[in-house]
């Protein structure tokens, strides 16, 4: 469950990126967040892993108020979320395998089992057997798949993606969208922002639309 109650975010410069945003996402839902550039999509998504904190209102994840979470509890919140944000860059100094391994290394997961999990995650995003390659040699779409594999390797029940299809050619974008739809069919709650809601249309997702920090449409 993701619950926003009257959430507002005003940045340090005084700019109000979100105002009075309220909505609820239940387990297993596929939700598409759309809106023009600058509408506040990234800001809204960053409130969930507590990268940003709301200036008013409450954000609750599975009953936990993350808007007031103490700093030292934040890492443990993030370990339970799958994040594919603009900040989720790949590390180009190590192999695809080691990139996907990183979340498991962070939690000190036993290496033997971790190896199996990484292989399974790469398999799910259609990159099985390519763990030894370096990210620099991959196409944009493939790099995005590595980032997605890294996000799901901890088997999170919630997956959050910020414009994962941006800068991709139409075919790659459709493939990435298909991945999120398949995760959702497997029971994962998916919240994804996009310029192009038509990519997800055939799954008939719920839609949230932002305009200048206000939620204008909740279907």
């Amino acid at each position, binding site marked *: 469950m993701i619950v926003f109650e009257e959430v507002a975010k005003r940045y340090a410069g005084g700019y109000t990126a979100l105002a009075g945003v309220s909505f609820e996402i239940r387990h297993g839902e596929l939700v598409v967040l759309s809106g023009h550039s600058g509408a506040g999509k990234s800001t809204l998504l960053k409130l969930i*892993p507590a*990268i940003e904190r709301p200036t008013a209102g409450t954000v609750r994840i599975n009953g936990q108020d993350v808007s007031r979470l103490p700093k*030292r509890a934040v*890492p*443990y*919140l*993030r*370990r339970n979320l799958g*994040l594919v*944000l603009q*900040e*989720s*860059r790949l*590390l180009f*100094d190590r192999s695809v395998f080691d990139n996907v391994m*990183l*979340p498991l*290394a*962070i*939690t*000190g997961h*036993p*290496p033997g089992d971790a190896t199996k999990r990484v292989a399974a995650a790469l398999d799910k995003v259609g990159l099985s057997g390519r763990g030894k390659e370096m990210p620099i040699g991959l196409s944009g779409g493939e790099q995005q798949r590595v980032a997605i594999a*890294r996000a799901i390797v901890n088997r999170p029940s919630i997956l959050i993606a910020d414009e994962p299809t941006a800068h991709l050619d139409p075919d790659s974008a459709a493939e990435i969208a298909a991945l999120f739809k398949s995760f959702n069919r497997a029971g994962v709650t998916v919240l994804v922002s996009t310029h192009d809601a038509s990519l997800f249309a055939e799954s008939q997702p719920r839609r949230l639309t932002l305009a200048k920090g206000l939620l204008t449409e909740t279907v």
Partner: protein
Amino acid sequence: MSNWLYLHRRAIAQALGRLAGQPLGTLLSALVMGIALSLPAGGYLLLDNIASLARGVSGTPEISVFLDTGAGAADASAIEKRLKAEPQLASFRFVPRDEALGQLERTGLGDVLGGLSANPLPDAFVVSLRTEDPAVFEALSAQMKAWPRVAHVQLDSGWVKRLHALLGLGRSAVLMLAGLLGFALVIVTFNTIRLQILTQRTEIQVSRLLGATDPFIRRPFYWFGGLQGMLGGLVALGAVWLGVMALAAPVATLAESYGAVFALSGPRWPESTAIVLFAAFLGWVGAELSVRRHLATD
């Protein structure tokens, strides 16, 4: 527990990887730190050698206790009893007044005394102690001056006192040097870690996003600082040994020309371990300060 070990093993592997990943930088830092540390380490060793040399050349310093001329055999044996009870005493020797006069006559100075009707020299004891500590000398001689029938106590420890004062001064200088250069080593590590943090910025940010705790992010830097310091310590140790080996032959020749047998000794195991651990500690301190300063803002 195994999780904790795993996380540390990973941090060590990461730190070693970073050290090995830039061999030239690692080598230069280790050399700078090592050369800086070799100065106080070498100074300490030099003082240690001087102290043991002084011990070997001087024999033990003595105290002469002169009784007054009226003292008889009973008085002398009373003093002897007191001397035997003194725990700091290594040995003593009684020099009767007749023997002293005999010695004087043998030197040719007897004529000077020839005009005197009686032997003017007193009975005396020559005392040597178990220690070279000037404080003990002072205390004991003051005590013996107060004994009955003791006219005069003469310390021949003047040079011992001077040597001890000089060695003490030397030790303070070495300590100051160690403090100053240790501080420099901390600064070097501080800066190395600062650059590390800059180049690892993306990795740090991404790791935070994936749920890395602060200790997880800091650990490799602590290990890096500690290991880098340790390398510096090993270089210092190597430099000191090189110095000892280069000086051993000339020092032995010099000692021989004074009729002494003396071999320059290098740092022993406890000292060597202390140098390396101290260097590792300084590296760790530099890492701690740098991590506090440069990771807090993220």
